[in-house]
């Protein structure tokens, strides 16, 4: 099986070309984060040949640990006898940013005796604006064939395939020692000269972009646009995904109603109803949200607005050790941490990506909402202050949301100041991609892929945790009484841990099960108090909790605990996968768990002190 490598600088159209040639639907990585898998796919038109995609990069001279890994990977691939040719993709409308990299690639290929084909992409844009570039001249100057293509329109692809087939039949001959030994310094100078000589002339392409930027980056109008777009983002998450989430819930319930009665064995039927449908259901309802959010983030990315949003948010976030690129991931975290963690892929600085990972689980995600609603309804009086202007419950909800976000920024601020890790950091240098009308199909496919990735990768772990929790809660008395189950016994064992918060073992059990997903806390507590369907209608449960004589201090302690603790197995699973470090996920779980506990104990004691 022969292999062809695809390289190119970020935003040059690598994903589109890769998918066109392989028939797959991947979003290729734009930065050489070690988190990112090297994708590969069989070429549709050439048998026995795979196309291997390498992360987009501006140069083969690494300036961060991650770039080093990526470059090392590339060099190793060149040593591989199966690798026959390298495709180097450049954006013909903005050649200068890719030419130096192209020259480096040509040199490396010369050293390793591999064939190289340079692809000048986005030719449709040049044609549309009637701009000519002398590709023949450039090809001659760089000693490599250049094929004009449009990955979007599909033009030039046949020619490319013809060329690849020809190269397969005619392996590379001798090595040009002069070309193979050119030092980087010289290549940089050459690239500069070549771009000036052969690059597209005129600034038609820039002018229209600059006009849009004058609006979107305008001090006042740009600010309005920014808030408008973020508002729409939020609206659409809820208006688009809420019906789908309901549909998943209703669908699962209907399916459960059909399947469960058909199972004669009592244990098997209980398992199907409670572990499979309810447990796994609690995780599947988040899939629509992940899909919609991924779609919207993709829309922002491909339209070019993402880079502008990053610019607008950079200064305030920098104070907390983050970058403007952390903004969208963190904002997504207010809906759900999973797509937020995926979105952090676009942060090129490894250090800032890590900090963003630390911030995301503290953002007040939507699974916390039912927990907050329950606790606030139970413990915060329905009174108003300031002559009816401020509702105490509303204020409490606002404060606990704000508390999560403030904690996120506090953590990143503290950690960044105490880890002066220069090598894994990168300065804020952001290419402003042109504004474009996004293609919907790739975005939908990408959202589908992410959702699938989530279900398959997190699914196994979630299933395992669900089964364990179900078994513990079901046996030995076959689900007759949760309080007499193994889980109940564990609750009694861990009761001393929760006693400093003024909580009894029932809350302990609910907290333990909420590791599956935070909102499970409500359902479990309902079961403990003997109330069916507490997650649908909280009122009876609220009354029960109030009647149980739990103090306001304990309620506040629980609120604070849930704001900070990383009680979400899905987040941990995806965090482990994306950061390629399960240790990171475990460390964060432990750190946030301990911090949450200490703060909760503090809050409880403070409340006692003030006699609340």
């Amino acid at each position, binding site marked *: 099986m022969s292999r062809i490598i695809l390289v190119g600088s970020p935003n040059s159209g690598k994903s589109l070309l890769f998918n066109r040639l392989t028939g797959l639907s991947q979003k290729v990585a734009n930065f050489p984060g070690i988190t990112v898998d090297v994708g590969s796919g069989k070429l549709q038109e050439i048998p026995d040949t795979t196309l291997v995609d390498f992360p987009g990069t*501006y*140069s083969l*001279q690494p*300036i961060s640990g991650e770039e080093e890994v990526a470059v090392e990977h590339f060099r190793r691939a060149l040593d591989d006898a199966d690798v026959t040719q390298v495709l180097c993709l450049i954006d013909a*409308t*903005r*050649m*200068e*940013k890719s030419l*130096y*990299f192209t020259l480096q690639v040509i040199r490396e290929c010369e050293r390793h005796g591999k064939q190289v084909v340079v692809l000048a992409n986005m030719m449709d844009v040049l044609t549309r604006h009637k701009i000519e570039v002398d590709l023949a001249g450039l090809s001659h100057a760089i000693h490599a064939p250049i094929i004009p293509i449009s990955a979007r329109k599909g033009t030039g692809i046949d020619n490319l395939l013809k060329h690849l087939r020809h190269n397969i039949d005619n392996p590379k001959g001798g090595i040009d020692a002069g070309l193979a030994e050119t030092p980087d310094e010289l290549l*940089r100078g050459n690239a*500069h000269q070549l*771009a*000036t000589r052969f*690059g*597209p002339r005129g*600034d038609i*392409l*820039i*002018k229209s*972009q*600059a006009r849009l*930027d*004058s609006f979107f*980056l*305008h*001090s006042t109008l*740009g600010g309005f646009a920014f808030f408008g777009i973020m508002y729409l983002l939020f609206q659409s998450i809820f208006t688009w995904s809420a019906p789908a989430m309901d549909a998943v819930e209703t669908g699962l319930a209907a399916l459960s109603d059909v399947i469960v009665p058909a199972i004669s064995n009592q244990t098997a039927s209980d398992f199907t109803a409670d572990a499979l449908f309810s447990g796994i259901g609690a995780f599947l309802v988040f899939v629509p949200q992940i899909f919609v959010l991924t779609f919207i983030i993709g829309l922002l990315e491909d339209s070019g607005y993402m*880079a502008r949003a*990053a*610019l*607008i948010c*950079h*200064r305030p976030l*920098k104070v907390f050790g983050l970058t*403007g690129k952390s903004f969208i991931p963190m904002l997504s975290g207010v809906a759900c941490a999973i797509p937020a963690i995926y979105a952090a892929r676009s942060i090129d600085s490894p250090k800032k990506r890590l900090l963003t990972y630390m911030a995301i689980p503290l953002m007040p995600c939507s699974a916390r909402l039912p927990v907050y609603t329950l606790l606030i309804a139970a413990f915060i009086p329905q009174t108003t202050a300031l002559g009816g202007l401020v509702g105490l419950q509303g204020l409490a909800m606002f404060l606990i949301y704000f508390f999560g976000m403030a904690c996120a920024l506090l953590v990143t601020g503290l950690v960044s100041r105490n880890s002066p890790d*220069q090598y894994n950091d990168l*300065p*804020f*240098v*952001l*290419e*402003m991609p042109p504004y474009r009308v996004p293609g919907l199909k790739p975005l939908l496919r990408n959202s589908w892929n992410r959702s699938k990735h989530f279900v398959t990768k997190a699914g196994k772990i979630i299933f395992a945790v669900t089964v364990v929790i179900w078994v513990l809660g079901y046996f030995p008395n076959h689900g007759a009484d949760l309080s007499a189950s193994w889980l109940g016994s564990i609750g009694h064992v861990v009761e001393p841990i929760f006693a400093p918060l003024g909580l009894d073992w029932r809350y302990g059990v609910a907290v333990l099960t909420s590791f599956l997903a935070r909102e499970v806390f409500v359902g479990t507590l309902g079961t403990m108090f003997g109330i069916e369907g507490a997650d649908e209608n909280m009122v009876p449960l609220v009354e029960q909790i109030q009647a149980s004589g739990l103090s306001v201090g304990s309620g506040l302690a629980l609120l604070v605990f849930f704001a900070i603790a990383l009680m979400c197995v899905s987040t941990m699973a995806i965090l482990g996968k994306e950061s390629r470090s399960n240790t990171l996920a475990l460390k964060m779980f432990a750190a946030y768990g301990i911090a949450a506990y200490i703060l909760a104990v503090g809050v409880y004691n403070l409340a006692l002190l003030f006699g609340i």
Partner: protein
Amino acid sequence: MNTTVCSLWSLGAGQRCRIESYDKALAENYRVRMMELGFHPGEVVTCLQAPALSAPKVYRVSNTMFSLDDEVASHIRVSLLGTDAT
């Protein structure tokens, strides 16, 4: 012609300049990366946007736009060439 040497960061929207040199204070690897992106000494750079509240500015070098923060832009010495009509 009256040339003023200042830092790239000090440019306002619409101002054009030529890159003179890099400050020693900018780490070597960042300097190399900037040159790889096209910010060579001698190159003409235009500041396209200088948003409020000292947000990163948008610069044009040949046909590409980059947004830079003062972390980098304040270490690039430039001579002013004038102001673009656009």
